């Protein structure tokens, strides 16, 4: 079955991972993407191209925690294998995130390597939300107070949480 996805410029909703999951579930190695305004000039914030070009896949087996879309699944799984308590931590994060940001929030995982002079690496958990900046920061504070600040001493060097908002 072919997945044909149409992305409309500026519509961030269409660029969310669940759309791209359709691509990764396809039997085809690549998807066909049409742009409704092909001649448009795209702005730096029109970042849906990133999602299309990469392979977000829902975490749906035992290598990675449930409730997330994962970029670079093998790399994330390897990191979690090296740090076994991380998987349980990420699974307990899901309901906490849902309570703070709502169930519509999208949770993504990827392995991130710092390229600055300090180096190091972590799992980056991105919470994508339709909330505006102020609402999103309020929700992040709720998440921190209810869960993360009790875990950050132990896991702060392994997990980084960022919010992507409207």
């Amino acid at each position, binding site marked *: 079955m072919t997945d044909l996805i149409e992305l409309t410029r500026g519509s961030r909703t269409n660029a969310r991972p669940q759309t791209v999951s359709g691509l990764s579930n396809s039997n085809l190695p690549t998807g066909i993407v049409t742009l409704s305004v092909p001649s448009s000039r795209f702005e730096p914030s029109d970042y849906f191209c990133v999602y299309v070009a990469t392979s977000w896949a829902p975490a749906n087996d035992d290598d990675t925690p449930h409730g997330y879309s994962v970029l670079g699944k093998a790399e994330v799984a390897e990191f979690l294998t090296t740090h076994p308590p991380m998987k349980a931590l990420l699974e307990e994060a899901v309901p906490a995130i849902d309570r703070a940001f709502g169930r519509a929030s999208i949770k993504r995982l990827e392995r991130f390597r710092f390229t600055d002079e300090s180096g190091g690496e972590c799992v980056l958990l991105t919470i994508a939300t339709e909330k505006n900046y102020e609402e999103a920061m309020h929700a992040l*504070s709720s998440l921190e107070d209810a869960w993360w600040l009790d875990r950050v001493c132990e896991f702060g060097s392994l997990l980084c949480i960022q919010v992507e908002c409207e």
Partner: protein
Amino acid sequence: MSPTIWDGFIALSEELAKRTASEAALRSAISRAYYGIFNHARLYYTSVTGKELRSNDGRIHEKLWDWYKENSNRDLRRIGSRATAFRIWRNSADYDKKYKGNLRGNAEFAPKQARELRDWIPMK
């Protein structure tokens, strides 16, 4: 150096974030805002511990934010956690050929975030 210099970094970041047609300006807005809060946080670290984190110390960013994230004070842990996410933005802004994320949005949020974090750092 005086903390006002680092506030100047944040103010400069705000100006750069308005230059939405320039990817270099937007990336620099993120980078300047990050260094604004990084240096404020470093001054506080030194005032509490009596130790200097020097720029030629290879793991200065990691060490600084780990100190915050592992602190007994919850507010400092919050600063450390958010600043680490900020560090990720700055890494992409300064090093990646293609910025990972919403460049315009992050450039707009960066000075706000830096001011918030600065305001949470206790006066010493």
